[in-house]
């Protein structure tokens, strides 16, 4: 009788811990996403698209506000200057001054590459889906160089519009994501987003340089480096409008 009671108590305790852990995992991921984006942000970034036979560098400025609004505008090279991408909720528009047209990215193109990089339009427009369309679980905790790194496995919900079997994120206790691995449904690693450089900028510790590379083609990668960033600044709502995408007012 006593034994049974003890067993029940232990089971309940274990279940309780598991639950607490799950909640923890989700909040770790949410904190990481929030940390990266802030309430609002204004950043200048450099994107390097590398292929075995060529390489291309672009500098752009990106603004974000809240969870779902962002605007990216290319500064360099000159021939691409003014190309912009606006996202609002799940929709995405692009503007090119050469054709002077705002184009809404149709659903059929969401899976395609964004500005020729290894990121898809979807990666850009819906980066925060990772929080609520997945079940998160802590795989392990490890200490390295004085920081704690949580390894979190995120499995998409059955009806989530995500093709990955699972994603594994390594998140430091200061909310910096060190690696983000995408696995297919057989458990094979397909692509990895790695933080190559972590440092302080805009008053936060963030990943300064990140690289997206595919397992099948290790020679091809895209790197995004943050040149400067300001967090939690006051950005007008008018910044994230189609007219501003077309006619920059700044």
């Amino acid at each position, binding site marked *: 009788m006593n034994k049974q009671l003890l067993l029940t108590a232990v089971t309940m305790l274990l279940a309780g811990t598991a639950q607490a852990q799950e909640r923890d995992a989700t909040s770790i991921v949410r904190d990481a996403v929030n940390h990266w984006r802030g309430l609002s942000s204004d950043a200048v970034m450099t994107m390097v698209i590398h292929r075995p036979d060529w390489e291309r560098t672009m500098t752009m400025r990106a603004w974000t506000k809240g969870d779902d609004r962002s605007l990216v505008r290319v500064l360099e090279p000159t021939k691409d200057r003014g190309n912009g991408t606006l996202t609002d909720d*799940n*929709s995405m528009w692009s503007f090119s001054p050469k054709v002077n047209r705002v184009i*809404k990215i*149709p*659903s*059929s193109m*969401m*899976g*395609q590459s964004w500005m020729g990089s290894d990121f898809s339009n979807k990666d850009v427009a819906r980066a925060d889906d990772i929080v609520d369309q997945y079940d998160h679980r802590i795989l392990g905790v490890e200490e390295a160089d004085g920081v704690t790194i949580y390894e979190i496995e995120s499995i*998409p*919900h*059955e*009806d*989530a*519009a*995500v*093709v*990955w*079997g699972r994603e594994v994120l390594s998140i430091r206790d200061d909310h910096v994501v060190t690696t983000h691995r*995408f696995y*297919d*449904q057989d458990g094979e690693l*397909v692509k990895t987003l790695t933080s190559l450089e972590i440092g302080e900028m805009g008053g936060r510790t963030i990943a300064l340089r990140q690289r997206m590379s595919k397992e099948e083609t290790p020679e091809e990668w895209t790197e995004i480096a943050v040149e400067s960033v300001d967090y939690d600044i006051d950005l007008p709502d008018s910044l994230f409008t189609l007219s501003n995408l077309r006619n920059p007012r700044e």
Partner: protein
Amino acid sequence: MHMLAVLSRLAWRNLWRNHRRTLIMLLAIILGTWAMIFMTALMRGMVSQMVADGISSLPGHVQVHHPDFRDDPSVANLINVPDSEIAERFNAANFRQWASRVRVPAVITSEYDSRGVTLVGVDPALEDGLTFVDYREVEGRFLESADDKGVVIGRKLADILNTEVGKRIVLMSQDPDNEIADRGFRVVGLFTASVKAFEEQFVFAGKTTTQNMLRIGDQVSEIAVLGDDYRDVEAEFQKTLELINDGVTVQRWTEVDRFLGTMLGVMDGFVLVWIVVIFLALSFGLVNTLVMAVFERVREIGLMLALGMRPKDILGQIILESLLLLAIGLALGSALAWATVQPIRDGIDLSMVSEGMEMMGVSSVLVPELLLSDVVLANVVVLILGFFASLSPAWRAAQYEPIEAITKV
């Protein structure tokens, strides 16, 4: 009447006086008839297959759409009658089979690739036997109900996407407000189709699930009605017109796919042309045979005329001779054609050239289709044209002057 019997006997005997020449001519007629009927059967089979495959890609002999759906088959052009009401009306109408479906362009994405496809939201209970997918041939399973959360894709598409039964894929499309509508689905089945292109093009999901994903409530984009015979769908067409006429277009399949519809019509004309062409080749041999037969018997014909046989009987005798020859040839030729169709009536496997055949939209088994009407047509056309072809030598024989003919050396 007595005269006809005498003439027939004369014609029959004359026919076998030079039996070698007659046999050769007979052989030519038999071969010609065989070619007419056998090749027609093959071509009929090919066209039928093409039409059947074509119809099966847009199943339903009579179809109902939004008026603009044909030009823009998007989610914006839905039938503006709720599906439940459609079901009520059509169930009461005693069709052989009918189904309503959602049909939109979509993008299917796996971890490795993405493809443009046609997403068809179906109610599997209504579609069984209507669609080109054989439920029992599906690897895994077909959808089980209209709100099945799974998706059934073609085997070829699965290869391209590097996915398989049990894995998840994402389908992306647009809702009526042009917002992205997407959802993850688990692949529950892989279908095979006789036309490989269908395996790449069509993706089946539950109708209700698709409606929810596209946020279109209880609306559908297509109603399809199956008739008993695809050649005659007029009854179903009229009945459908009566059932639903609120701002929709009702079309027969011949209008939905004009190419196929036209082809079926052209085929009948083509059979006739084919028969006439073969006959033209045959007729040179036939006329030549008769001319020779007449030439050999000039003196004999002169004697008959001198003894009092009337020219029109000479005419009749020669024509009878030619018709007898044709009749025997036609009978044997038709029998031969029938006999060659029998062993292959289940179809000829053309899988070794299947890639080329698919480019024409034809599946790789060719089933010959021997129609009685084609056999009758070939026989009648040959007899009638043969009659006219033999008129000229017979006419010449009947015009001989008896004295000249008898004394001809």
